[in-house]
């Protein structure tokens, strides 16, 4: 399933040849390593350094317009481009999977513009760009996890104005978030936030962990890997340095709890992992499989099988 560069694949960075008729037009364009020019990368690195120095604080940065749409990972792509070196091994996941279309497109972008090695194996990657998940396999201090972030502001849906939320952060005035969580409990009996669940970083800033399920929140705490968050459209970068305390907000009488699945993965039999629900037919048939495809395939290769395992992965695709 590793993504070999395909000469027939459309080029995301240059106009397609069939659209360019004869005539004096663009000269052949050459792009810098990892697309962005060095000045821009330096600017992004400065923002990253500041973000690491102030864990959980949203650092404004002059996000560039990228050749993929806003909301599709431009922030993560810029952060990855700024930290990527020629010796890095890149893994890109979306919803935990390496083969979802947007993950494929972003991995292809860096194969093309940076020529770096890519992998689907969590253990082999030095940089992992992710949307909506943290890999099941614990990360190490040799790895960087880059999150794609749609809305970096944890207070945004409580207070839409940047001018206001800036002040609330400056004063560490996070009462609004607690009121929201409390109202959930009053109304539903428990906290009804299931993803993008707010966390407090290093005892100071409240941070949006990006729309990962709250199942993944505990993995952020004391994580040996550097965690970087890029929001391109909103022009913000923030970070969790290695081994930083990350606490999901809660109450003494309503402690933070993660989702639990009743069944194990139907393919690899794993328990205690995040599962995708797959609808099998129109008569209510469904199954649950690992959202983290690498984790699932590794376990299958090691001989773990779930109830619906039918052979080596990919054999019947």
């Amino acid at each position, binding site marked *: 399933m590793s993504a070999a560069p395909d000469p027939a694949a*459309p080029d995301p960075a240059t106009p397609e040849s069939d659209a360019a008729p004869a005539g004096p037009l663009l000269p052949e364009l050459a792009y810098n390593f990892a697309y962005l020019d060095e000045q821009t990368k330096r600017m992004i690195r400065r923002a990253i350094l500041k973000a690491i120095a102030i864990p959980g604080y949203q650092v404004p940065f002059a996000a*560039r317009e990228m050749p993929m749409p806003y909301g599709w990972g431009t922030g993560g792509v810029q952060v990855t481009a700024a930290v990527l070196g020629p010796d890095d091994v890149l893994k890109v996941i979306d919803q935990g999977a390496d083969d979802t279309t947007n993950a494929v497109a972003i991995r292809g972008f860096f194969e093309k513009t940076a020529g770096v090695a890519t992998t689907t194996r969590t253990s082999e990657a030095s940089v992992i760009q992710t949307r909506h998940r943290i890999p099941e396999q614990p990360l190490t201090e040799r790895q960087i996890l880059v999150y794609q972030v749609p809305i970096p502001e944890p207070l945004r849906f409580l207070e839409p104005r940047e001018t206001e939320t800036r002040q609330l952060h400056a004063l560490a005035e996070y009462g609004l978030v607690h009121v929201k969580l409390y109202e959930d409990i009053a109304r539903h009996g428990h906290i009804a936030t299931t993803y993008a669940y707010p966390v407090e970083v290093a005892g100071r800033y409240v941070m949006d962990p990006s729309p990962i399920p709250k199942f993944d929140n505990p993995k952020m705490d004391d994580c040996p890997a550097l965690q970087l968050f890029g929001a391109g459209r909103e022009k913000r970068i923030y970070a969790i340095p290695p081994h930083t305390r990350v606490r999901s907000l809660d109450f003494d009488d309503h402690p933070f709890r993660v989702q639990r699945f009743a069944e194990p993965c139907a393919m690899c039999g794993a328990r205690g992992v995040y599962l995708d629900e797959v609808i099998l037919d129109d008569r209510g048939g469904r199954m649950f499989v690992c959202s983290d495809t690498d984790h699932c395939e590794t376990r299958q290769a090691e001989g773990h099988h779930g109830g619906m395992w039918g052979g080596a992965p990919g054999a019947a695709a």
Partner: protein
Amino acid sequence: MYVAAKGGEKAIRNAHRLLAKRRRGNPNLPDITLAQIAQQLTLAVDRVMAEGSLFDPELAALAVKQARGDLIEAIFLIRAFRTTLPRFGASRPVDTAAMLVRRRVSATFKDLPGGQLLGPTFDYTHRLLGASAGVEGQYDEVDDATDHVAVLAGAAGAGPMPRVTDLLGADGLIEPSPADAGEEPFDITRTPVTYPVDRATRLQTLARGDEGYLLALGYSTQRGFGRTHPFVGEIRFGDVEVSFFAEELGFEVSLGTLQLTECQMVTQFTGTAQAPPQFTRGYGLVFGQCERKAMSMALVERSLRWAELGEEKGAPAQDEEFVLAHSDNVQATGFVEHLKLPHYVDFQAELDLVRRMRAERAAEAGPEAFEEAAE
């Protein structure tokens, strides 16, 4: 047996091949050329240049073609290309009084120095679909010499065509245009914007903002949501020269000409204890012939100035952060359309929660309540 869906790469490749085929359409028909797009779909090209923030008709034509006529997609292509271009400095301010004027109308004076020049406009055409509307014929009888009025400063027999606002300004009837401080302006493409913003940031953001969005906001001010009592002082469209002061050379060099539409909206202002009654300005400036956009921009620009003019706030078009933060169609379309990306993981979390809450409620209230909730 179940095998999870694979093959994202192959699917993407096939989809893009199909896109290329659909873009070409029926191969028995001649391929549309970039020159045809640039010459015959001028206003589409102009809009792409304006909102793409890059003045290059050939590239804009290419973008229109590559985007199959989807102008926001074309604008996106231009922006993604623009971002890779080096920026070597800021030009000298362009002088629209020295414009080679192709169209100039004022709604505030019947006649004025330089006259009214209708130019190529849809105004006063009857919108009758068909050959009689002049798609065919007619055009070859037009004498190109009447196409523009040469008023380039220093040209023999013609001075600059004064702007209406300059005429009003001479009597102090309208607020002066802010003086050029000589500083390099804030660049919204190179620095993150923080609110509140200065004038340069406001104008830049509006100049690349979505035409439809600004049109609706401008319209809302006319319908009573933050009324500014506007008059079109002047709209002018034509060619201006752009020059650059080269430090190494010690003098200005001309970089060429570009086409601009400028709109000066004259609006009412009743005065305060400190300032006498005076007209105020709303300003619109856009690449190419984009009159609707320039007018809308001028209306919205004026609305956003409520605070400095001591007006009351209350209308959507006056809300700076709301107006500016949502004006960019490349940002907007990206984020709206990202909803079609997979969200399995978050949806699974919500699904789990809803099931759990329904189960809890059913357990609490018995089966009748559960059925009600399911309806």
